[in-house]
């Protein structure tokens, strides 16, 4: 166990290990889906995009499996203290990863619309780096969960600002581009949604990190100042 000794009842340890394994597998799939969607976007690979859409079902199934296992552990093991915090965090993290999977699917679904236009939109080239930042946050938040590393969790939260800044920058670029090239508005709007999805993935990774902190420390991370959402403040 990463935390303390083994339980007197060994089957409980086995279930905790199983739960961590499911979270890790689910996180790995969500991360791959986001990165895959970015690659498919750049390459205009429709086959890969369809595969990502189809494979989201596996992430949903993992969420259901985690929910079943958590309910079973609560019912049969009556976990206390850090065990309780961990299984509750696992349940919530699974829901967040499911959302991340949905964002990846949503990005993949937009790929045909973005590629069908006659114009090349340069802002596209910014998105893989943004996707990289967001998925690294997801991966590191999940690594922090596996290791009960609350310092790493704080570090992940601190990186959300970089993703927000990226989004604001993409937003400005795309708005400018749309004003100059009204014919591209349809495509560019899709790209804007892709950027927004990536920004939300960063937010979700932050949520995961906050749960990791709670599971490890038993208290909530203090309310932290968030980067201003440029798009939301330009009303």
């Amino acid at each position, binding site marked *: 166990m990463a935390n*303390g*000794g083994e339980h007197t009842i060994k089957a*409980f340890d086995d279930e905790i290990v199983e739960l961590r394994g499911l979270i890790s597998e689910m996180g790995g799939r969500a991360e791959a889906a986001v990165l895959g969607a970015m690659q498919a976007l750049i390459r205009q690979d429709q086959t890969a995009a369809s595969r990502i859409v189809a494979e989201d079902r596996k992430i949903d199934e993992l969420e259901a499996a985690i929910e079943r296992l958590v309910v079973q552990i609560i019912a049969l093991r*009556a*976990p*206390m*203290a*850090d065990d309780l915090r961990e299984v509750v965090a696992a349940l919530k993290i699974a829901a967040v990863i499911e959302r991340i999977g949905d964002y990846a699917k949503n990005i993949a679904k937009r790929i045909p619309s973005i590629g069908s236009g006659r114009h090349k939109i340069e802002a596209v080239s910014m998105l893989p780096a943004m996707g990289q930042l967001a998925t690294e946050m997801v991966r590191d938040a999940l690594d922090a969960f596996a290791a009960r590393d609350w310092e790493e969790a704080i570090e992940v939260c601190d990186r959300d600002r970089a993703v927000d800044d990226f989004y604001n920058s993409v937003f400005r670029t795309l708005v400018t581009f749309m004003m100059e090239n009204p014919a591209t508005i349809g495509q560019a709007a899709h790209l804007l949604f892709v950027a927004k999805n990536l920004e939300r993935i960063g937010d979700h990774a932050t949520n995961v990190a906050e749960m990791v902190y709670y599971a490890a420390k*038993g208290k909530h991370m203090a309310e932290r100042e968030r980067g201003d959402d440029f798009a939301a403040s330009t009303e």
Partner: protein
Amino acid sequence: MTDNSLNEIAAHQHAEPSAPKMTARNVNVFYGAKQAISNVSIDVDMDNVTAFIGPSGCGKSTFLRTLNRMNDTISGARVEGTIELDGENIYAPSMDVVQLRARVGMVFQKPNPFPKSIFENVAYGPRIHGLAANKADMDAIVEKSLRRAGLWDEVKDRLSDSGTALSGGQQQRLCIARAIAVDPEVILMDEPCSALDPIATAKIEELIHELRGRYAIVIVTHNMQQAARVSQRTAFFHLGNLIEYGVTSEIFTNPREVRTKDYITGRYG
């Protein structure tokens, strides 16, 4: 336990914190040369049910018994430190132990009704303490006590039946009615449900919930779920020491001490 942590506990209370009903300071208990309790300080108040948890032999029952001087009956047992009930030292020579045990009642692990009628089981205490002026008074005390113990409706038509003829759960509630009958201020319960089935246990737990606020209640239990369900304050004992004392929901979700955590999460030993 420092004064600081006691203050923190007080700060967590939702209700207005009341003055402690019982106060123990630097209590040591010895059985002959063997020390069973080391330097325990704790406050017990009226508004909260206090649970003592810990592994077998940790001293929780021994400490509970110091609160109404039940250890006096064990030869070779010696208590040091101060234990006060409403500011009055219960180990002072002037303390009337019979009177003390009426004020600090006790319910034991195995239901132990007297081999007498249900009515007599409840009436016995008030009678020896002279609490009833006449038969009507006594009837009223018996009914009130049985009602508070949640037993009245089940036994009102057979008060002359033997107390020992009741089911285990009913017998335990009869013992609680017997403790209540002398109008105590504190009720000590030493694993009151360990001999009961889950339904009888649930009834006792519901009863503890209803009695909270009227009496200061201290319960020793091996069942951590029970401590979590019935108490607002939990004290964890280990090897005769009070390791941690705090708000129950905190103890079970975020204990401060590793030993507490290991015990409640099932990593002990």
